[in-house]
């Protein structure tokens, strides 16, 4: 038995906060204690039940097999397909993403990430307007006004407020929470809203109109704004506009409440304009609250590899991007894919049920540490080491900051990167064999 070791300043690989002050005690190859992490992070690092062996479905039943057999079957599925989909990538390292992109190029697949069911609309909004942002430390050190719009960090990003936003103290914000105005805009009074100075309750689906009204008020064109917009009184909106303009440094954090609602990317587009305009009066930044810890990272890797951050179709050898056409849910909804690899994501649970049903009709390869509903439909299941706990690599925080994930314990499972290399080599081998046969 190995001695107890303390790993200091480990990076938590759960949410987009990527807290890097986690202390982990390891003994006997197992994590014994986790300090500083939130409930979400410690539950992940402590570990829980997982898939124990690679499996291939035979006569309807998943049967254990060797890793090589699983790689070969996965490669065969990908090679057979006319339009394979490789989806997920949010909960693994950038290194795995790089190998995945290479594999997608090799087999002519569509490469899509979980962004398309969370902040995909934010990306499209950014394509319209750009993103006026900052690192989280900038908010911690400077922000005197913070708006949480359609997001609930109290439950989704539990340490966000203490480390980076509402309660953080910094150079120009020595009083922390006391020196700040916190405003929450949402359709329900969330835990985050309960701790805010002001909660603005809006009617679901009305974000766009409310933002337009705010833009009018910020620009001094309030005369035109009706007495009520999206369930909010003009007086409340005027108050909010005045608060925003008076900020020394303001930050807007937004979440799926605004990307998943009517208006989708247009909501973000409008919010980006609002923030750009606020910079004529005060300093303002805006940031999406990214959920999965590396959903931002895979977007970065895909962008520098292909020019686009999600939904990239490599079928014709050159990258083509058009969410609405090339996103996972588009392809599945239209039946326009004939095989899928789901990695580091649980597509079956997270997609609309009618979309997930399309996955049941095509061969699915799953790469994941954990059993989940996607496993139930999969043809090939390959268990992997948990990135950030059992494998090292790179992840990007919600503000785009890259951090190095540690390997805390050795599980004996191959990393996602190693699995993808295994499949890639099998693809190349099978292709060569076929070429030789034909010759």
């Amino acid at each position, binding site marked *: 038995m190995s001695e107890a070791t303390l790993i200091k300043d480990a990076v938590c690989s759960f949410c987009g906060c990527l807290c890097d002050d986690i202390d982990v005690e390891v003994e006997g190859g197992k994590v014994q204690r986790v300090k500083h992490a939130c409930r979400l992070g410690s539950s992940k690092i402590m570990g829980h039940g997982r898939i124990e062996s690679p499996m291939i479905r035979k006569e309807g039943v998943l049967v254990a097999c060797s890793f090589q057999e699983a790689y070969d079957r996965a490669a065969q599925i990908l090679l057979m397909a006319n339009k394979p989909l490789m989806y997920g990538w949010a909960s693994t390292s950038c290194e795995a993403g790089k190998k995945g992109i290479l594999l997608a190029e090799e*087999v002519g697949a569509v490469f899509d990430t979980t962004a398309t069911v969370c902040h995909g609309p934010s990306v499209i909004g950014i*394509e319209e307007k750009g993103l006026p942002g900052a690192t989280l430390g900038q908010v911690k050190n400077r922000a005197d006004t913070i708006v949480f719009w359609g997001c609930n960090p109290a439950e989704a990003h539990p340490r966000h407020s203490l480390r980076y936003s509402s309660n953080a103290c910094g150079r120009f914000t020595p009083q922390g929470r006391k020196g700040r105005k916190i405003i929450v805009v949402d359709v329900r009074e969330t835990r985050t809203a309960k701790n805010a100075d002001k909660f603005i309750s809006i009617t679901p689906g009305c974000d*766009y109109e409310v933002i337009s*009204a705010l833009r009018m008020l910020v620009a001094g064109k309030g005369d035109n704004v009706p007495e009520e917009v999206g369930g909010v009184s003009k007086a409340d909106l005027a108050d909010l506009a005045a608060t925003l303009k008076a900020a020394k440094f303001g930050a807007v954090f937004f979440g799926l409440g605004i990307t998943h609602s009517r208006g989708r990317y*247009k909501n973000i587009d*409008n919010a980006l304009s609002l923030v750009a305009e606020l910079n004529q009066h005060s300093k303002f930044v805006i940031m999406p609250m990214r959920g999965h810890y590396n959903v931002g990272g895979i977007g970065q890797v895909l962008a520098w590899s292909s020019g686009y951050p999600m939904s990239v179709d490599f079928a*014709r050898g050159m990258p083509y991007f058009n969410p609405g056409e090339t996103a996972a849910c588009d392809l599945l909804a239209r039946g*326009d894919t004939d095989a899928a690899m789901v990695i580091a994501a649980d597509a079956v649970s997270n997609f609309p049920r009618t979309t997930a049903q399309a996955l049941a009709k095509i061969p699915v390869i799953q790469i994941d540490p954990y059993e989940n509903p996607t496993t139930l439909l999969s043809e090939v299941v390959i268990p992997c080491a948990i990135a950030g706990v059992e494998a090292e690599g790179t992840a990007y925080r919600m503000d785009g900051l890259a951090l190095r994930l540690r390997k805390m314990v050795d599980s004996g499972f191959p990393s996602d990167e190693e699995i993808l290399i295994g499949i890639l080599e099998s693809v190349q081998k099978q292709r060569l064999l076929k070429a030789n046969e034909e010759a």
Partner: protein
Amino acid sequence: MRTITITPREEFRISVEAENISSDKFASLNIEQIKSLAVWQGNRQKALSDLFAIEGDDAPATAEEITIRLLGDFSSVKRIAEGMTAGLVEVQGSVGMHAGNNMKGGLLSITGDADDWLAREMRGGKVVVMGDAGNYVGSGYRGEKCGMRGGEIEIKGSAGAYVGEHLCGGSISIGGNAGDFPGAANQGGTIFIGGSTYLPGAEMSKGAITVKGEAKVLPSFQKMEIVQIDGVDFQKYAGDLVDNGKGELLVGVGSS
């Protein structure tokens, strides 16, 4: 007049990209050459004749003189008539995404429905759809400042969201309803919607949008006078004032 008829050989499960089905691409080719034009189905490149039966006049002719008749279900066939400058593409049925992309001239006529991105970045010519159209009729590509710049699109049925996004010129007419945000960031084109819609003209700087039915209007539009067109009353709005826009929005008052 040279007529070429194309019929799908099967029902396509994986969508087909057929940007080579256009009068310009066919102009200088005989039938055999047309049959061997490239077409993609997913990651497989094929010859046009692998997927479609092709018949018609063999002798090459100019694009103006060509009629391409598409018979059958083309709803999973994308990019038909992309970039065409002249001639006629006549679809007896429905078409897939991106029909008439970047069209510069000629006529694309569709008896059925058109899928998303119909006539994206159109420059000239005319597109007529007897049925419905999907999202992004006459819009731009992602991140691009300009969508359709010229030409005419007529949809007899309804259309999806984002009709004429970033419209820079030309006209779009929708007989039925339009989805959310028609004419967003309109910079000088005209849109007519026979039915109802939601938040038209967001961030429009120029151009005109007419909605005969009902429309939820943004709080950043200024209510102007009532105007009468062909005996119908319309409420006129100016906007979108968020960007000091000088666009004109007319919304029917008769129906509500």
